[in-house]
């Protein structure tokens, strides 16, 4: 059984949803982001999303754009991100790791080689922001052969018939982009989520993670109950950015993010 499936089944038994924190690889440097990654499970991360820095993150708001820039300055490459996952797997064999990014670095790496190397490194799923269902054949067969889940995105603009089309061959879990907007800029209301989720569940039996605009413990708690998981990204990165001194990590960097993660996790578990 895949790590993603095992984790969601275990949480179901526990009777709660998942907390999925996000960090940008190499932000602000390789060592700090690896230290944070390794400490996240103990602070309450059930799954972890790692952002792969890209020069042109056209679906991201200012917070993640800045994080990507810091990551690139620190020398991030797709190969380097896989190295980071490999290192994480030395101490954690269970927490699912999902890479989130844009298509071009993967295209440049080579789709088949990437899927194989990613699984070898210990990656469980990938979210490719600018690869809709219509273009997914670029990776599908390679991902399937390697045992890598391609996580499907659905949005408030995805109408009912299209939901069925998009989720037909979905694997791992479904990522609901809960606002029409870029990351870190707005939030869906609880009522909006309660209206959207049943429609998605009609089209899939997979767990549904809710992301974009979740920043407070209360929002994380609500999303993890209405859906099956809450993704928190910009809010954690904002905290991390606030601890940096001239773009460099300080002794506050990792502890501040972990403290916030613990609060989020307490709300999701509470």
């Amino acid at each position, binding site marked *: 059984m895949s790590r993603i499936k095992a984790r969601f089944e275990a949480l179901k038994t526990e009777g709660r949803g998942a907390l999925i924190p996000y960090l940008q690889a190499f932000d602000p440097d390789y060592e700090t982001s690896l230290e944070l990654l390794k400490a996240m499970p103990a602070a309450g991360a059930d799954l972890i999303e790692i952002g792969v820095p890209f020069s042109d993150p056209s679906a991201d708001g200012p917070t993640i754009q800045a994080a990507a820039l810091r990551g690139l300055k620190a020398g991030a490459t797709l190969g380097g991100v896989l190295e980071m996952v490999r290192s994480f797997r030395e101490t954690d064999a269970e927490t699912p790791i999902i890479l989130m990014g844009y298509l071009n*670095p993967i295209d440049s790496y080579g789709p088949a080689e990437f899927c194989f190397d990613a699984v070898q490194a210990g990656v469980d799923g990938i979210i490719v922001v600018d690869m809709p269902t219509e273009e997914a054949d670029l990776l599908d067969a390679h991902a399937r052969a390697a045992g890598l889940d391609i996580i499907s995105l659905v949005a408030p603009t995805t109408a009912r018939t299209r939901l069925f089309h998009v989720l037909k061959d979905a694997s791992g879990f479904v990522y609901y982009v809960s606002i029409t907007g*870029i990351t870190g800029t707005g939030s869906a209301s609880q009522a909006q989520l309660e209206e959207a989720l049943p429609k998605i569940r009609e089209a899939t039996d997979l767990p549904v993670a809710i992301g974009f605009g979740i920043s407070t413990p209360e929002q994380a708690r609500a999303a993890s109950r209405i859906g099956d998981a809450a993704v928190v990204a910009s809010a954690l990165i904002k905290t991390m950015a606030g601890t940096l001194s001239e773009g460099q990590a300080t002794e506050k960097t990792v502890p501040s993010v972990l403290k916030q993660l613990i609060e989020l996790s307490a709300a999701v578990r509470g």
Partner: protein
Amino acid sequence: MTTPSSSLSNSLRSGPDERGRFGVFGGRFVAETLMPLVLELEEAYRATQADPAFREELDYYYRDYVGRPSPLWFAKRLTEELGGAKVYLKREELNHTGSHKLNNVMGQILLARRMGKTRIVAETGAGQHGVATATVCALFGLKCVIYMGATDVERQKPNVFRMHLLGAEVKPVTAGAGTLKDAMNEAMRDWVANVADTYFLVGTVAGPHPYPEMVRDFQSIIGTEVKEQIVRAEGRLPDVIVAAIGGGSNAMGIFHPFLDDADVRLIGVEAAGLGLDSGKTAASISRGRSGVLHGNRTYLLQDKHGQIEEAHSISAGLDYPGIGPEHSWLNDIGRAEYVGVTDQEALDAFQLLTRTEGIIPALECAHGLAHVMKIAPEMPKDKIIVLNVSGRGDKDIFTVASHLGVNL
């Protein structure tokens, strides 16, 4: 307007396929949030293609508002100066707002109105597309937001002021190098955040399908007119057609009606910046490789890890690390040739056209002319070259002055 595949199956003009591809290039690489909008746009565009009233309306605006047809001018003194092939100029700089950009904008704004959209966003480099978009928004009373790289805001001040006068909001983009690529990212972010009322009016033959096809179709009025005009003037088709390439819309517009005329050489001129091998260039075909950006697969300037590189050109309108997907395909099948021209060569050409023909060209098409200056002298006097003069150069006089050491 081109009809989809059916009747033209043995033609190079039948692309793209139903997935929006020209060979391996093109496609629809957008976030799921935008995908339904892209599909809706295609459907709306197909409806206009099937509706003669749309074409009639567009022709009315082309004639009475844009000022079409634009003349095809025999450049006698330039021809004598170069001493070889006859050079004709397609006078797109005479269009309202001073460039070819309005051909596309006019078509898309009529489509946006049919779709019931009330807010228009666009990206701009030189500001010509921004000015054209702001112009039609003024004409139809629509809200207009233009994203422009901060660097370009600085080097294209007259156009920024024109957009303000026309009632548009100009948002400077400071991300990256603050040029066209960054403005494109920001316009896409705006679109994602305002899907209900907003129409994204793309300014060149790039972006997700159907933009490359649609923009090409609207710009093809250029080549269609040239075909008639050159036959009237010379009794035959030209030997060579030359156009400068930023995203590739003026080039695609003049090339497309000639794609099946195998004897007509098509040459696209990319901005080589400080030189093709200087590392400071905008020559995506000459120095890039296949990748995915801004909704389509095409040739891109990128590093070995797939990070997009900053382009460089003296001309803000050519300063883009990609190129429309149809050009990438035409390059790979060998139907069109793509060459590079440096900043300095473009500056020299700018001055030559001004002095021999009394036409101050935009720095963009000065790149095209610089290539004509290289090939015309080598060609016999009975050969014919058509150069697309895509815009007028008033907007560039500050840049040119500073390169000539003149303080305005």
